[in-house]
C-alpha cells in the first residue's frame, strides 16, 4: 500500500462526499426552513438523471441535458410542493414520512411508465473525458470536475443565503416562521421556491452522477438513505453540518471499504478477511451515525438550538 494509493482514495472519498453534499443540501434546506422530512428527495435526483439522459441522447449535448435535468427536477419539485407538500407542513413527522413514501412509489412507477424498464445511456461530456496527472496519480478528469461542481455549489449556496434577499428570508424562515409572515413576506411562494431549489440541487446531483452511474428506476433510494445519514450526522437544517457530514461519510465509507479488509487480513485468512471486512465496511457509516447521535443527539452542528 503506497502513499499515492492512500491519497487517491482520500480524493475519492472527498469527491463522493461532495456529491452527497449536493443531495443533502436540498434535504437539509427544506427541513431547516419548512420543518419537512422529504423521503421523495431521491426521486427528484432520479428525475434529474433521466431527463438529462433523455435530452442528452436527443440533442447529443450533455450540457443541454444537464440544464434540462435541473429544470425538470425543479419543476417537478415545485409541482409536488403545490399539490402535496404544502398540506404537510403543519403535520407531524409521521404523516410527512408516509406521504413522501407514497410519492416515491408514485414517481418511481411514473418514471418507469414513461421511460421503460431498461437503464438509460448517459455519458461524460467530451471535454471532461480522460485523466489528468495529479502529482503521482492519474485521476479521472470528470471526477475532478465533480469536486469542482460540489465546491462551486457550496460556495453559491453560501452566497445565496448570506448575501441575497431570498437568503435573508430563508434565514428568517428558519428562525421564526410567524414573524416573516407578519412582515408581509409571501410565505407560500417562499416555501415553493425553497422546495424547488432543493429539488434542483437533487436534480443536478442526479444528472452529474448519472454520467458515471446507472440511470435506472430506484437509483435515488440508496442515495436518499445516505443523504439522511449525512444530514443527521451534521445536524438537520444546517448547511454547514451537511458539508461536514457529507465529507465525513464520503471519506469514512471509501476508506472503510479500502482499509478494513486489509486490517482484517493481518489476523484472518485472506478470503475470510475479505468477507468480514466488506460486511463491516457496509455497516460503518450507520455505526458512525448511531455513535454521533448517542453522543450528540442533535448532530454535530445543531441548527439554531
Amino acid at each position, binding site marked *: 500500500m503506497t502513499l499515492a494509493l492512500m491519497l487517491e482514495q482520500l480524493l475519492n472519498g472527498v469527491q463522493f462526499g461532495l456529491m452527497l453534499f449536493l443531495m443533502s443540501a436540498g434535504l437539509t434546506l427544506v427541513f431547516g426552513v419548512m420543518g419537512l422530512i422529504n423521503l421523495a428527495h431521491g426521486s427528484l435526483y432520479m428525475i434529474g438523471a433521466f431527463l438529462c439522459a433523455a435530452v442528452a441522447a436527443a440533442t447529443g449535448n450533455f450540457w443541454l441535458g444537464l440544464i434540462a435535468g435541473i429544470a425538470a427536477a425543479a419543476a417537478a419539485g415545485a409541482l409536488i410542493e403545490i399539490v402535496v407538500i404544502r398540506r404537510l407542513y403543519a403535520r407531524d413527522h409521521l404523516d410527512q414520512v408516509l406521504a413522501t413514501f407514497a410519492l416515491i412509489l408514485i414517481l418511481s412507477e411514473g418514471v418507469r411508465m414513461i421511460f421503460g424498464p431498461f437503464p*438509460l445511456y448517459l455519458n461524460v461530456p467530451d471535454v471532461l473525458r480522460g*485523466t489528468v496527472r495529479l502529482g503521482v496519480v492519474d485521476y479521472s478528469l470528470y471526477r475532478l470536475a465533480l469536486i469542482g461542481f460540489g465546491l462551486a455549489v457550496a460556495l453559491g449556496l453560501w452566497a445565496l443565503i448570506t448575501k441575497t434577499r431570498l437568503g435573508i428570508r430563508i434565514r428568517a424562515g428558519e428562525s421564526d416562521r410567524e414573524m416573516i409572515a407578519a412582515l408581509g413576506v409571501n410565505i407560500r411562494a417562499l416555501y415553493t421556491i425553497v422546495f424547488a431549489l432543493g429539488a434542483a440541487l437533487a436534480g443536478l446531483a442526479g444528472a452529474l*452522477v448519472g454520467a458515471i452511474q*446507472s440511470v435506472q428506476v430506484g437509483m435515488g433510494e440508496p442515495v436518499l438513505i445516505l443523504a439522511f445519514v449525512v444530514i443527521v450526522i451534521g445536524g438537520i437544517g444546517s448547511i454547514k453540518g451537511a458539508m461536514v457530514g457529507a465529507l465525513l461519510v464520503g471519506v469514512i465509507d471509501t476508506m472503510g471499504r479500502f482499509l478494513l479488509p486489509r486490517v482484517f487480513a493481518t489476523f484472518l485468512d*485472506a478470503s475470510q478477511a*475479505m468477507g468480514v471486512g*466488506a460486511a463491516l465496511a*457496509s455497516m460503518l457509516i450507520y455505526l458512525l451515525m448511531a455513535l454521533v447521535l448517542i453522543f450528540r443527539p442533535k448532530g454535530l452542528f445543531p441548527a439554531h438550538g
Partner: protein
Amino acid sequence: MNGFKTAALAALAAGTFTMAKADQISVGMITTLSGGGAGLGVDVRDGFQLALDMAEADNIRLVVEDDAQRPELAVQIAERMIQSERVDILTGIIWSNLAMAVVPSAVAQDILYLSPNAGPSALAGANCHPNYFNVAWQNDMLHEGAGAYANELGYENAFIMAPNYPAGTDALNGFKRYFEGELAGELFTQVGQTDYAAEIAQIRASGADSIFIFLPGGMGISFMRQYEQSGLDLPIVSAAFTFSQDILPAVGSAALGVFNASQWSPDLDNDANAAFVSAFREAYGRIPSLYASQGFDTANLILSAAAKADVSDRDAFRAALREADFASVRGDFAWAANQHPIQKVYIREVVEVDGEITNRIVGVAFEEHRDVHGENCPM
C-alpha cells in the same frame, strides 16, 4: 373487509374458470417487472410470449405476475398460482434468492418448475428434484467459462471482483476453479454499490494484467462508466450477465472489447436463433438479450413436451421434458442427470454493429460443459 370478501369470491370464480378446459396447460410466470431489475423480467416474459405467438399455441394459458424482486411476495404469488389458479408449471424467476424461496416448496407440491434464469448451486446439487428443470445454466457455469478463456488469452495475474453475496462468491469460485494464473487481488463490493472509485484505485495499484468482474445490472453499468473514465486500460473478462443486451445500450462504448462467456449470443448461427432474433426485433424493436433467449427456450421446451404428453400425467410430461425435443436457440441442448443443461459455452466480445452495441461470438470456452454441483444430486 368487504373488499376482501368480494375479492375472495372473484378468486374463486377465477379458479372455477381455469378448470373448465382440462387439456390446457396453465403456466404461472413469476418475474420481476418493477424496480431496478425489471429489464430482466420483461425480457424473459417477452421472449416466452414470443415463442407462444410464433407457434400460435392455443393450449397454453399464461398468467404473469410481478414479484418486485421481493422473496416473500414471490412466495405469496406462487401459492396463489398453485392454489387458486391451479397452474401446472411455474417459471419466470430471475434471482437466485427468490428461486430458493419458491422452488423447493413448489416442486414438493408436484408443480413443475422450469427456471429461465436463476440456477443456485443448492438446487443443482443436494436439493435437486425431478420436478425442477433449469433451462438456462447453473450459476457458476459462465464464470467458469470466463476463467477457462482467461487462460487461453494468456492472462497471468487477474484482479477479481464481485458483490458480497452468495451469487458473487459463486462467481469468484467459478472463475478460480478454471483460471490457472495468479490473483493480483480479490475484492467483494457491496450489493447495489454505485461508486467504484475505491476499487478502481486498488486495481490500478495491484499490478494486475487483467480483470474479472461479476457485477450484474446497474452495478455493471456504473463500474464500466467509471472504469472508462479512470484511464486504466486492462482487458476485462466476465460472464454474460454483466454485458447482456438489456444493459449494453446504457453502458455504451465503455463496454467495447470486453470478453464475456455465454451459452447464447444474438449472432449465433442456427436457424432457430436467426428466426428468434429477427422476430424479437420486429415484435419489440430491440435486440433480444440472453434473458429473452432463455424465456424463448423455456416456452418452446414446454410446447415440445405438450405435443407428446398430457400435463396431468406428471410422469409422462416429465419424460417428455427430459427428451428436450425442441430447437433451442443456443444450438444443441441436452440435460445432465440433475436436469441442468450440458452445453457449449461461447466467448463473446462486445462490438458495435450498425451503431448498436451488441455481442459477437469470438471463441469457445467449453465444448460440452456441465456444472460441478450435479455430483451431489442423488438423481
